[in-house]
């Protein structure tokens, strides 16, 4: 995968996903060492290009890059290109002139990483674009489920919340479906986008039916600004109807796990008592996020430029990781 852009799970094959997950499983060990660093990406420059603030994702990518000995530069741009009177193409060309080895992009508008990738010589990793995709999040979710359940094939995964505005939902729908899980989405009809069934999921507006027999229940973060958009009338009503708590979770399988991409609105999408303890695996997700992002960086930035010969994966893993 050297030099390849990671723009979305939709573009990845099942084999790609399996390779990334296997690589991440090897990377997990590095985080347990006394010296949490390997020289794999020494001398490589990674740019975290965040047009939208995201402390968690940015920090996770930064730690991942540093554990692989890369130089990580944070390039935070707090606004859209229009307010800066600079085009995306200008931004891309400017970065390209600095000759990075990988650019990690977060933007509030769908498609921006794709447009940048078309111009940049370095591979681009999408760290979240609008309501489109957030591939590293879905991959770390899959890694976590695999760790907890030993498999993905045949599982039932229910995603609850604002599906319409969620890139995490879309990436997870693609990812879990590709690996043979059944994906259900649930939320008020105002939060379920038109034609979601065409992505191969089942649509529910009744939470109990949606989590009946589920192995994994994933709650999405409710964006309070959606109140203005009249997607739901009040936090109280949302929490009562779609908020997960132990009582509602009884409908899921006995050994079901609860996931959340963070940060949690306690008492809204997730009851306080669920956020901190089993069956919640939220902190496992965060921990796995670093290993997963190490795997992604290693797989795409192991060589300098798109199209250059692929480094031998076996060499790097055996020798350095």
């Amino acid at each position, binding site marked *: 995968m050297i030099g390849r852009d990671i723009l979305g799970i939709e573009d990845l094959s099942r084999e790609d996903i399996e390779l990334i997950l296997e690589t991440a499983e090897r990377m997990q060990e590095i985080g347990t060492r006394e010296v949490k660093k390997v020289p794999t990406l020494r001398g490589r420059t990674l740019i975290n290009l965040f047009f939208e603030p995201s402390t968690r994702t940015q920090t996770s990518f930064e730690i991942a890059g540093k554990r692989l000995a890369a130089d990580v530069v944070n390039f935070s741009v707090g606004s859209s290109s229009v307010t800066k009177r600079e*085009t995306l193409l200008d931004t891309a060309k400017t970065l390209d002139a600095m000759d990075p080895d990988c650019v990690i992009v977060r933007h509030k508008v*769908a*498609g921006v990483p794709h447009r940048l990738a078309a111009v940049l010589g370095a591979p681009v990793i999408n760290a979240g674009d609008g*309501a489109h995709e957030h591939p590293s999040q879905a991959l770390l979710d899959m890694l976590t489920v695999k760790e907890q359940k030993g498999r993905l094939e045949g599982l039932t995964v229910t995603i609850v919340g604002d599906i319409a505005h969620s890139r995490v939902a879309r990436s997870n729908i693609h990812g879990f479906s590709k690996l043979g899980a059944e994906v259900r989405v649930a939320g008020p009809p105002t939060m379920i986008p038109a*034609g979601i069934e065409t*992505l191969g999921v089942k649509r529910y507006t009744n939470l109990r039916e949606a989590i009946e027999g589920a192995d994994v229940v994933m709650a999405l973060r409710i964006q309070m600004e959606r109140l203005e958009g009249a997607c739901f009338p009040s936090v109280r009503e949302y929490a009562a109807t779609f908020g997960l708590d132990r009582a509602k979770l009884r409908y899921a399988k006995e050994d079901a796990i609860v996931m959340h991409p963070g940060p949690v609105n306690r008492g809204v999408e997730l009851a306080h008592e669920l956020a901190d303890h089993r069956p919640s695996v939220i902190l496992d997700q965060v921990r796995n996020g670093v290993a997963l992002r190490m795997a992604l960086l290693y797989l795409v930035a192991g060589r300098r430029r798109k199209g250059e010969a692929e480094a031998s994966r076996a060499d790097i893993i055996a020798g350095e990781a």
Partner: protein
Amino acid sequence: MTRRVDEGGRLALGGGRILIRGGRLLDPAQERDGELDCLIEDGRIVAVDRGIAPEGAEIVDAAGCWVVPGLVDLHAHLRAPGQEYKEDLGSGGAAAVAGGFTQVACMANTDPVNDDPSVTKYILDRAEKESPARIRPIAAATRGLAGQVMTEMIALRGAGAVAFSDDGATIMDSGVMRRVLEYSTLAGAPVIVHAEDCHLRGHGVVHEGAVATRLGLPGNPAMAEELMVARDVRLAQWTGAHLHVAHVSTAGAVEAIRRAREAGVRVTAEVTPHHLTLTDAATMDFDTSTRVAPPLRSPEHVEAVRRGLAEGVIDAIATDHAPHATYEKEVEFTEAPPGMIGLETAVAVSLALVREGCLSPLELVRRLSTNPARVLGLEGGSLAVGLPADVVLIDPERAWNYDPGQGFSKSRNSPWADQRLVGRVLATFVAGRLVFHHERGVSNR
């Protein structure tokens, strides 16, 4: 002296007698479709017949070509005054004749807005000097396109406005819309609407449906258009005004127009080449040249507007030519200004409808020329004897590569950029003067 139009060379035609010979003449206004010659004298059509052999005429050999009346575009943004970096009356007029359009109606969303007779006159004066095509200004329906106070429609009509429209700034206030429609009957010109409920649209930039959901881009539902068309045809029925619905893109709008026409409402409608031939899937790579308003729709809507056009519910094909500077489109999809250029590609793109059996050649020409002229009450749209000789030669089979950088528009925002198109305008005459030749370029009339 015989010249094939596709040989290029010096074609100093104009002013005298010109015989366009041996082509397939298509004149929907007179239901003519056949191998007929067309004789032009002093800028007017003087004879259309088989085997004309006049003395001393320059002869244009049109063998293999369609000979059609000058095309009429009901909907273009020529950006002057105020945004000449995108387009002006010279470049827009050149793009028009290169695309076979001899008359172009230009929208009022200029800077300043064409809501005052002085602006209308300015546009016409500049067009007279700069544009090889005849420019027909559409004036604003309300001052400043603000949807509140109606414009001086009678004075604007007197200055040369052919219709009234706030276009993309849909008049949401039904009370204002009612008054505008009522008053327009005094001025004797249609009100053109970009029918879209802006609240229902919200921030939507692509058709709400499976593609928008996949892409995570905000959706603009078909219902936003369907509701507003339903309102406007009812208001037109109530007021007796002539309503023209711009760029119909949804099945529900076609149905509402069909029913209104059956009820005798004075409603006409247009559809763009892009809404006839592209679906929302064209946006899958986030190419901002596919960001248009209304958005490209799903296949079932495209099918419905095609059927509406074939059945005559939709009268005309109009380009909605909307030039934007390259750098304005090199931004986030949601931030890119909506619109694509279309004057130079409309014929080639629309010819797909003939090849796919949706329209006969005569019916295509009717929708590109005769009907739009009729919608605006313009002279033209016909090759009848006595009319100004606005004549276009089209080779429907000729393949060419469309390079907007080599085109006449100042802008390049086209989803057909660098694509191979089939069907090419070879020559355009305005009032008997050759203003465009595909090898020689454009000259002013």
